[in-house]
């Protein structure tokens, strides 16, 4: 593996006086790798993403160390990392045009003027395979479908050429056909630009199709981490084995007996 992009030592997060939402996580993220964080509800996977992005609420107490050797400073939102949320309906600004919200990041972080930033925004809409980018530039989020909005959110996230892309359940609200398209898009973009990808998901099968490494979280702890093929073919923990066994695809025998007819 190459250089370490981010190094976490004993990272813990507690909200209020409840139990830890993240409990002493040790994990290194390599520059340019595609790392999946897999876990179910309450595993701490979203808290992990938010801790990296410095998006935790103020009452959250953070312990341990977070080092960014490749950057040499804490990452600047929008510039050093882009964040894609589950629901683009609420992460996009409803009263700005699509063009404005994508151009904003490029203008602010790349020192472009508005005209150049708009040109870049339109080019980015093409890169995220949005049909008719020129028309979409003038549209508002509510005029787009869920899948199209997520494409816009991705374009905005990569507008300032960040080195790290964090996708937190970015496809969970989409139907499976659109989900497959968005995963293909993310995979292509991070390959072309050499970005580091943190792909947070509850779906181990979805991750298994394209990431380099998988880290499995459960109840605020890191259960195991390793190259995707070894975690999937020889899981170290019973929990990971259970996740794999619970997966259903079209090769899984159906639960009903053959139709009685």
């Amino acid at each position, binding site marked *: 593996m190459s250089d370490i992009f981010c190094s976490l030592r004993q990272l813990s997060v507690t909200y209020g006086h409840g139990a830890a939402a993240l409990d002493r996580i040790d994990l290194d993220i390599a520059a340019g790798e595609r790392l999946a964080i897999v876990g179910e509800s309450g595993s701490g996977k979203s808290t992990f993403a938010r801790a990296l992005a410095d998006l935790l609420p103020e009452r959250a107490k953070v312990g341990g160390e977070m080092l960014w050797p490749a950057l040499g400073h804490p990452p600047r939102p929008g510039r050093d990392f882009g964040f894609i949320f589950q629901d683009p309906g609420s992460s996009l600004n409803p009263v700005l045009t699509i063009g404005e919200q994508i151009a904003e990041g490029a203008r602010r972080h790349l020192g472009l003027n508005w005209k150049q930033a708009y040109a870049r925004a339109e080019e980015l809409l093409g890169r995220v395979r949005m049909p008719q980018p020129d028309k979409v530039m003038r549209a508002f989020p509510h005029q787009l479908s869920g899948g199209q909005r997520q494409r816009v959110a991705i374009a905005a996230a990569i507008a300032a050429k960040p080195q790290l892309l964090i996708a937190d359940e970015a496809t969970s609200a989409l139907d499976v056909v659109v989900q497959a398209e968005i995963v293909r898009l993310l995979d292509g973009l991070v390959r072309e630009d050499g970005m580091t990808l943190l792909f947070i998901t509850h779906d181990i099968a979805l991750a298994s199709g394209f990431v380099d490494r998988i880290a499995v979280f459960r109840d605020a702890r890191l259960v195991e981490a390793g190259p995707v093929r070894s975690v999937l073919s020889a899981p170290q923990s019973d929990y990971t084995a259970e996740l794999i066994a619970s997966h259903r695809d*079209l090769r899984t025998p159906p639960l009903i007996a053959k139709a009685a007819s």
Partner: protein
Amino acid sequence: MSDVLLSIDNLSKGFSSSGRRVAALENVSLTIAAGETLGIVGASGSGKSTLSRILLRLLAADAGAIRFEGEDWLALSGAALRRKRAQMQMVFQDPLAAFNPLATVGAVLDDPLRIHEVVPRHRRTGEIAMLLERVGLSADYAGRPVRSLSGGQRQRVAIARAIATRPSLLVLDEAVSALDVTVRGRILELLVELQREQGIACLFISHDLAVVRAVSHRIAVIDNGRIVETGPATSVVVAPQSDAARALVAAVPRLVTDPF
């Protein structure tokens, strides 16, 4: 399979969106036999939920007919409709939104038993305990607020409420989509067991072909408001005939486990 329990005939529904007329359903025809599960699978915006809402009489159709247990289902109204609803029950995606959040589990289950007079008053508590046990929860859950349950437990309560009136048809609209995968598997198993024991027919609606396939005898694929393909579950999965079905088959995430 034998008796037709439900038949949907040329159902159509349109909405107008900024002056344009959009067909949500166009000439949809389907049948469900007693004790059978029909899976409806389609992408977002294909018309699946419009279909379930019309079927549950939450929305009026523009044209078409539905016969349920030999009666003209769309012609029923008032007290007759309310009585007949006991035979067709539903489970939604988000059970918390479907419950009074302040209610206890016992109160949620007591309502249908009382309203539809399923059992005499003095036997309701026992019936609630039996329903809870039937969906894999212990009887002491009756005193707990619905809010305090996990997503999987809530969905079990939603299923218990749906079967309380001893329906012949359950309509499940994305009923397991919001659940964790380990929980989802157990809920699907529960549904299959209930069907085997009680002979309930199900209309199982989802965007996820893998989930639909797990529980369905037959599958209908819906795309842009039209049924583009219907067949035994295995044939739709193994040899999809329409573009929509092929796209759904291709989109199911597969576990990649082979070492390099």
